[in-house]
């Protein structure tokens, strides 16, 4: 099995000064390349913390986390930025599109961060928007789009630079059932392929069926990993 992510004994403690919260308490998890892995579990169990570590935007306090063959904690922060820019796509519950940029401009951001020229980046962005069914709406501002459409723009943004890892935190929670279902179909059909791994945090039991495997978390531990089907 070609591994995309390997977490070994990952520990993360939030220290707010008054109080220490152990959000991850020795996580062991392997995720294969080409796999759609879901992270589920009760609120506060550490799901968001775990994908933050996997995506390289949060440092763990202990343990190893290898992503795409790189040990993130050993990387210099500049290399980590480059690593994220090249290899990671993000999809958020709250979409997090830049409100004053139109759809194409939003989608082009990862390319621009990677040094692609603006015109070329926006051209490519419109291509990808077509793939998610929004080719016509490339000029629309986020506020002119429905929630489902905004999430599709966000998915296009997560895809545009062909990253090998896409992390999604509750991508369907802000959407109604049908729209959520469509978004998941899109992720599974377009985003997933043999050289790309998707890690999706969700509460939403109705979309569990899209997963290749589901890791169940509780209180900072992985308690069970099972195949969905």
């Amino acid at each position: 099995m070609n591994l995309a992510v390997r977490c070994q004994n990952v520990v993360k403690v939030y220290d707010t000064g008054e109080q220490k919260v152990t959000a991850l308490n020795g996580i062991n998890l392997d995720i294969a390349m080409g796999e759609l892995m879901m992270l589920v579990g009760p609120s506060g169990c550490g799901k968001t913390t775990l994908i933050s570590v996997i995506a390289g935007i949060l440092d763990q306090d202990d343990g190893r986390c290898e992503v795409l063959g790189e040990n993130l904690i050993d990387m210099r922060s500049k290399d980590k930025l480059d690593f994220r820019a090249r290899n990671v796509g993000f999809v958020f519950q709250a979409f997090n599109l830049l409100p004053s940029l139109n759809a194409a401009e939003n989608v082009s951001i990862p390319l621009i961060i990677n040094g692609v020229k603006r015109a070329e980046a926006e051209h490519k962005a419109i291509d990808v928007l077509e793939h998610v069914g929004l080719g016509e709406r490339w000029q629309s501002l986020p506020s002119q789009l429905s929630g489902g459409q905004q999430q599709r723009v966000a998915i296009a943004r997560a895809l545009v630079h062909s990253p090998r890892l896409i992390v999604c935190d509750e991508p369907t929670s802000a959407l109604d059932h049908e729209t959520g279902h469509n978004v998941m179909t899109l992720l599974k059909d377009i985003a997933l392929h043999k050289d790309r791994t998707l890690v999706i945090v969700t509460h939403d039991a109705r979309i569990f069926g899209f997963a290749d495997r589901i890791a169940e978390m509780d209180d900072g531990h992985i308690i069970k990993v099972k195949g969905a089907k």
Partner: protein
Amino acid sequence: MNHIALKMLMGDKGKYMGIVMGLTFASLIMTQQPAIFIGLMSRSYSFITDVGLSDIWVMDPKVQFVDDIKPLQDTELYRVRGISGVEWAMPMYKGLLKARLFDGRFQTCNVVGLDDATLIGGPPVMLEGKIDDLRRSDGVIVDIDGARDKLGKPSSAPGGKPIPLKVGDSLELNDRRAIVVGIAKITRTFQSQPVIYTTYSRATSYAPRERKLLSFVLVKAKKGQDLNELTRRISETTGLAAYTQAEFMTLTYEYFMDNTGIPINFGISVLLGFIVGAAIAGQTFYSFTLENLRQFGVLKAMGTGNWTLLRMILLQAVLVGSIGYGLGVGLTAIFGFAMRNTILAFKFPWQLLMFSGAGVSLICVFAALISIFKVIRLEPAIVFKG
């Protein structure tokens, strides 16, 4: 990334206008108040600048400012003329005298006596008549504000505007007749009395009999003569004080700074304007960055480095700063233009432009810095927070 920074800034028109207006207002109060202050303080020495032609002013060593007259003996004029490096030296009389108006009222006037032959030191702008008309017997030139107001004849209708004193009208100075031969425009000074120009000999004949009547000796240096060297030579030879025009202006200006409440009162309002302006501008820009923190977090998560974010914020700050500054200074200039013919003091030298420009830049950079600090310390992991 620059175009993204600009779009972020201008995307929300309302907020964008808010920041620009904040900075405009800041620039406005940072330039308008000091302009009035400078205008007011420059009145302290406007008599000196009006005289113009001379390089050096010679006077009693105890004189503290231009209106502080301590007369010299007439012979001092000849001693100054004898010093090497002096092209010419002319006498000037300056003093307060009582004028009797045609209806019998008395009015204190600032009488200036100019060298009979050359009339050097006369008013800068003649509105009616010529300076040479002073050579006519009993001739005096009156300043326009004095002629219109304090020296005017009472209106025939009660409470109406006084009828201005005209060329050809007469008044009495110390029981001697004076005939108005010209009306001049002079730069306003701190003194509110009408100003009357006449010849030196006539002025001294109007003045009460005294042993000493010479107020100043105006000196022109020979070409190529170092002024500081000449002032030193004059004061060493005569025991009098000799100042270059700039030095005399500074002396006068500093006297007013040190001895009146103007600087402290005005200084406080200028300072307050600066602080209020800085607070408004800094606050609006800072809260703009705070509101966009999440967007910066998203960019950071996606791999944008701190330097790039820093550049984006600086670009935003520089842009709103320049626009706000331009508008603020523009408004100040319009204000000054609208007030040009009023009693309001207003002076807008390039130094002030630099000062307020530096002030606004300082505010913007400061606001940008604390914003940048916030963005640099930003944990990209906030992007997953609801």
